């Protein structure tokens, strides 16, 4: 089966020659969630933008569904790719309904079909349409906004989701709740997802595999349950950020998710 996304020695350099990411080679399977974790400036977001052509690689290639991104029409590629960013990404002048239906609208679906789809999606993310569809984003809590963001990304049923710190601005309790729901949803729908975060705990909770980025390179890529045993210094440094008194033991986590 073709991978949803594969990086082949992909890199991106600024015009001044500074590499934001380089030598990225890995792939995301058709219904796999890969999480890239690393500190700010490690190149995680850049890697994500190489997938939907918000940036084009200056070295190597990135393939989506087996086709190099340079041979995809950028607009078409983006409409086939769900894109979730921090809460700021909802359009403040549009109702929740219109926000969620925006990609179907761009794709030219009939208004009736969009309405039906939006109702279905809002129910799926736990925001009953009757109560929430006509609200504006500023009338929602942070957690509700992120649910809308996920619903919007799923609207046109894209095979691939790209998520850039989607839960970064949430309080810890809401955050954990959304991580669990997200994981369940992505599994159930069989989506491929490339997810970026600076929170290792989130990475372990969500990812099938977790990649550690440092200085623009991918320094480790391991199944979530074996990452903490990886011996690269950057991976060790990240692992040290976990407070051992709060983290569930790795074995228990693996059982829960398996």
């Amino acid at each position, binding site marked *: 089966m073709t991978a949803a996304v594969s990086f082949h020695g992909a890199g991106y350099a600024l015009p001044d020659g500074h590499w934001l990411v380089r030598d990225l080679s890995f792939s995301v399977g058709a219904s796999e969630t890969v999480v890239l974790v690393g500190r700010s400036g490690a190149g995680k977001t850049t890697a994500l933008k190489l997938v939907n052509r918000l940036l084009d690689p200056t070295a190597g290639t990135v393939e989506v569904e087996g086709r190099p991104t340079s041979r995809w029409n950028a607009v078409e590629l983006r409409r086939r790719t769900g894109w979730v960013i921090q809460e700021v990404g909802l359009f403040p*002048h549009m109702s929740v309904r219109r926000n969620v239906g925006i990609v179907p609208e761009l794709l030219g679906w009939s208004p009736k079909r969009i309405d039906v789809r939006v109702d279905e999606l809002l129910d799926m993310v736990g925001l009953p349409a009757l109560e929430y569809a006509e609200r504006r984003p500023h009338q929602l809590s942070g957690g509700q906004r992120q649910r809308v963001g996920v619903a919007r990304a799923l609207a046109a049923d894209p095979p691939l989701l790209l998520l850039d710190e989607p839960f970064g601005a949430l309080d810890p309790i809401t955050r954990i709740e959304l991580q669990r729901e997200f994981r369940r949803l992505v599994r159930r729908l069989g989506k491929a997802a490339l997810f970026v975060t600076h929170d290792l705990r989130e990475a372990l909770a969500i990812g099938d595999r977790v990649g550690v980025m440092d200085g623009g390179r991918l320094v480790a890529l391991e199944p979530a349950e074996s990452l903490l045993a990886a011996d690269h210094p950057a991976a060790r440094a990240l692992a040290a950020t976990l407070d051992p008194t709060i983290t569930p033991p790795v074995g228990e986590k693996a059982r829960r998710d398996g």
Partner: protein
Amino acid sequence: MGDLLGYLSAHRGQVAGLLGEHVVLVAIAVGAAVAIGVPLGILATRDRRIERGVLGTANVLQTVPSLALFGFLIPVPFVGGIGASTAIVALTLYALLPIVRNTHAGIRGVDPALAEAGRGMGMTDRQLLGKVELPLAAGVIIAGVRVATVISIGIATIAAAIGAGGLGVYIFQGLAMVDDTVILAGAVPAALLALAADGALGWLARRLTPPGAPGAPTSARPV
């Protein structure tokens, strides 16, 4: 004050006629300035060189004294000469700056993350402009139209000097006759017109400013 009211009611037909001319001058000029200025302002957000050229030119135009601009335009073929068309050209030039500048600032003020979100959803440039940038900038653009309208109502009183009519006719007559009442018969209705336009467009700008847009009042967010 009694003199003024007496004068206005004695000449109400003529006052209404001049007021009508005044409104028409301003409406055509501001309409033309919107038709030219909004696209120019949008273009200025798309290209650095256009940005410098357009904003620079509009700034310079604004510094030319209005009576001088009317004078300069009289000998220009096609747009010039004595009468309303020259005045409309001059008023349009004055109205351009606030409209161009606010269109530019309004679109530039849209959160870059929102524009990127739109692009990431698969919006074309045109869709991004129509669905995200312009709606979010609408309040700021209307605020520019408001300033342009108020300025034009004031400057249009000077247009009477080149035979364009409007409430300035009374002002120049009053000056010539050294009669304060006649001056006020032009100036007071012009001022009231400016206040009315200011209020109406201010209301519209507030209505069109979505919460979360640049310049929007910050609202408490319910949780």
